[in-house]
C-alpha cells in the first residue's frame, strides 16, 4: 500500500540539486522562501496552480475540467491533512515559482496571462527538468485523485468524474467521520513516540 506519489527524501535532495543547477540560485531561494511563508488564504500560488490545473485537465463541452471536479480545493484539502508530506508541499509551492520565473523571463508575463499555446510550450519546458517534471506529475496525480476519489474528500462533486467515466463505485461509501486521515489519526494518537 505504498503511497507512490510521495517523494522520498533522497530523491528530493537530488531534485533540489537539479533544480538549483537549472535555475538561477536567487530565484530558487526566493521561491523557496515564498513557499515556506505562504498562507493558504493568500491568492498565490493558488491562482497559478488553478490555471495550470485547468490547462492540464481542460473543461470541454461534454466532459468535466479541473474546476468542475474541484481540483484546487481538493489539492488544498489534501495539503491540509495531517501527515501531508513536507517535501511534497515544498515542491508544489516551488514549482509555481519556477514556472512564473520562466514566464517572466520569456514573455515578461506571469503564467496566467499567457495564451493557451504559450502555456503549453512553457509547461513542456518545465517538464524537461527533473524537478519540473516531478512537479507536473504531482499536480496530475492530485487532478486524477480529484476526478475519481470519493466526493467526501471534496473532489468529484456529486460523482461527476464517476459519471463521466461510467464508473460504478463500491458500497458502502466513506462518511465524513470515516475519512482515511481521521482513521489514521485515531490510530497514531497514542502511539506517536
Amino acid at each position, binding site marked *: 500500500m505504498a503511497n507512490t506519489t510521495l517523494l522520498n527524501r533522497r530523491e528530493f535532495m537530488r531534485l533540489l540539486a537539479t533544480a538549483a543547477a537549472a535555475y538561477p540560485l536567487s530565484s530558487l531561494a526566493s521561491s523557496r522562501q515564498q513557499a515556506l511563508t505562504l498562507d493558504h488564504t493568500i491568492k498565490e500560488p493558488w491562482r497559478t496552480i488553478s490555471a495550470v490545473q485547468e490547462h492540464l485537465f481542460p473543461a470541454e463541452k461534454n466532459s468535466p475540467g479541473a474546476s468542475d471536479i474541484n481540483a484546487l480545493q481538493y489539492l488544498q484539502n489534501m495539503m491540509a491533512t495531517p501527515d501531508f508530506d513536507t517535501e511534497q508541499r515544498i515542491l508544489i509551492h516551488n514549482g509555481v515559482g519556477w514556472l512564473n520565473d520562466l514566464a517572466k523571463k520569456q514573455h515578461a508575463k506571469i503564467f496566467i496571462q499567457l495564451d493557451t499555446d504559450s502555456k503549453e510550450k512553457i509547461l513542456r519546458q518545465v517538464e524537461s527538468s527533473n524537478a519540473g517534471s516531478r512537479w507536473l506529475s504531482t499536480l496530475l496525480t492530485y487532478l*486524477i485523485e480529484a476526478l475519481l476519489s470519493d466526493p467526501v474528500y471534496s473532489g468529484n462533486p456529486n460523482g461527476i468524474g464517476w459519471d463521466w*467515466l461510467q464508473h460504478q463505485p*463500491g458500497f458502502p461509501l466513506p462518511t465524513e467521520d470515516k475519512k482515511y486521515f481521521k482513521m489514521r489519526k485515531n490510530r497514531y494518537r497514542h502511539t506517536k513516540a
Partner: protein
Amino acid sequence: MSKDYDVCIIGSGAGGGPVALELAKAGKSVLVLEKGPWLTEKDFYKDELACCRRSVYTPQLEDEKHVIEEQYRDGSWQGESTEDSGWDFWNGNVVGGSSNFMSGFFYRLKPEDFHLRSEFGSIEGANIADWPISYDDLEPYYTKAETEIGISGQVKQHKYQEPRSTKDFPYPPTSEHPIVKHIDEACDQLGFSSLKTPRAILSKPDMGRKSCEYSGYCGSYGCSTGAKGSSRAALLNRAIKTGNCKILPNAKVVKIESDNKGNVTSVKYFDEKNIKKSVSAKIVVVACQAIETSRLLLASTGAKHPNGLGNNHNQLGKNLVFSAGGSGTGEFTYSKFDKLTADQLKIRGPFVNRNLQDWYFINDKKMGGTVKGGTIDFLLRHPNPISKAMRLKRDENDKLVWGKELKRKIKSAFVSTQDLRFEVFNDWLPTDNCFVSLDNKVKDKWGSAVAKIRIGYHEHDLKVGEYLSQKAIKVLQQMNADNIRYSVSGSPPANLVAGGCRFGNDIKTSVLNKDCKVHDVDNLYVTDGSFMPTGGSVPYTWTIYANSFRVADIIKKRL
C-alpha cells in the same frame, strides 16, 4: 511463579486467530497482542484513497520501515530503506492482520508439496526440503478451516485434485461474473480444465456474519459485511465471546524474554500510550507474518539464545519465500460484441473465480522432464479507478500526458473495455539469497532495529512463471482478447510471504520442530507462514489457517 495468562499470542492474523479461538474455547486464558488498531466492519468503506493510495491500515514508512537488499550488477548486495524507496512491505497491521485485505483465493497444497525434494529431486542453488509432516496430517485441518473460516466453492475432479475427506465445500460458490462463460468456453476448446476457485467468502449468511453483498471491491479492501473470512471476523470475534480471550490492540511487542534454561518467561511491549509493559504466559505463540516473526525472534536474545530465540544454529530468518510467477491482462472491447454481451461484460460485482491447475506438475521436454509447475487464476482488473487512471499519465516514452489527450486516454480506458487479468503462482525456491536479518543502522520509532530483507530469487522460478504465463495467454487469445500483455519477474510480492522459521526434524537445518515449537525452547511456538520450508504454488492463507488449527490442538493437549 504464576503466569498472567495460559497463552500469549503475538499477532492476530491468520496465524494467531485459530490458536486464540481453539484455546479460548477449551477454557484457557488467552491474550492476543496486536500492533495495529481494532477496526471492524463499521470502519471499512469502499474508499479509493484508504485502499491503495495512502498508508491507512499499515504504518507510515517514516515510523516503521524495512531495509530491502537487492543485488547490483557488480554482484554486491545493497540495502535501501523503504522510507527512501517508497517500496512498502507492510500488509495490514490491524486486528485480524492482512487477512482483512486478502482476496481470499483459497487453495490447499497438494500431497507432493509436502515432499518436493523426494518427489522432484534437488535443484542447484535451491534449499528445497521435505516437510516433517504429510498432507494426511494436515488434511483434517484444511477441512476444519472450511467450516470455521467459511470457505465457498465447488469441487470438480481433475488430474491434480488433492484428496478430500469431505465431498464438497460447506458453502456453495459465490456469484459469478458473466465473463466466466467465455473463459470456460475457451478452456473447453483448448482442452484445459477450468476450475472454480474456492474463496474465503461466505456465499450465504452464517455464524453471525452476513453474506457477500457483491460490491465489486474485495481484494485489498476491508470487508463491510463480515463475509470475508478474516481472522478477525471468522475467529477472533468468536474467541472473545467465550469470555476467555482478551485482545489488546496498539500493543507493539519488542522482545520476548527467556530464562537461563532458555525458556520464555515474558513478553515486553509498548501499549497504546507508548508505555513499556510486560506480560507473562505459560506458552507464547508468535504469528506476526513471516518477516516480522523472524525479526522479533532475532531481537529476542537471552542467556541461552545469544543470537536470537531459536537461532543457535543460524537458521532463523533463513529460507524466506515469496510467491513466484507473474501476471498479465487482456482487453475485451465492448464494440466487438453484441449489446447484450457487452452489457454483461460491463457488470461489476460478482466474482470471476476461475483457475487452472493443469500444469501444477509439468511434464514437458522443454522443461527438462517433470518439474513442479503452478496455478493460474483469472480475475477482473483491480477495481480502484485511481490506480487505473494513474497509469495513463505517462506515455510509452515516459513523457507526461495532459490536456485533451489525457482525457481521451482515460475515457477510452474506462468505457471501451473490460480487462481480464491472470495471475501465476509458482514456487519461490528457497535460496541462500532470500532471508531476514536485523539492520544494524535503521531503527523504527520505538528504537528497534528494523528487518533487513534480502530478496534474491532463483532463475528457475522465472522459467516456470514464463511457461505458465504462456498457457494463460493461450486462454486470452482463444477468447479473442485485445492488447494482451504480461510480465514475469523476480520481484517479490510482499503480501505472499512465508518461511524464515522452517520446521523440520533436525535442529541444525530448521528452527521449529514438526509441532511448530522452537526446537530448543519448551514453550514457544510459531503459527504464521514462517514454518513453511517450501511454499507450494498457491496463495498461503488456507495452509496457514489449517496449520494453526493443527498446532492449537497440540498446545491444547499440553495445557
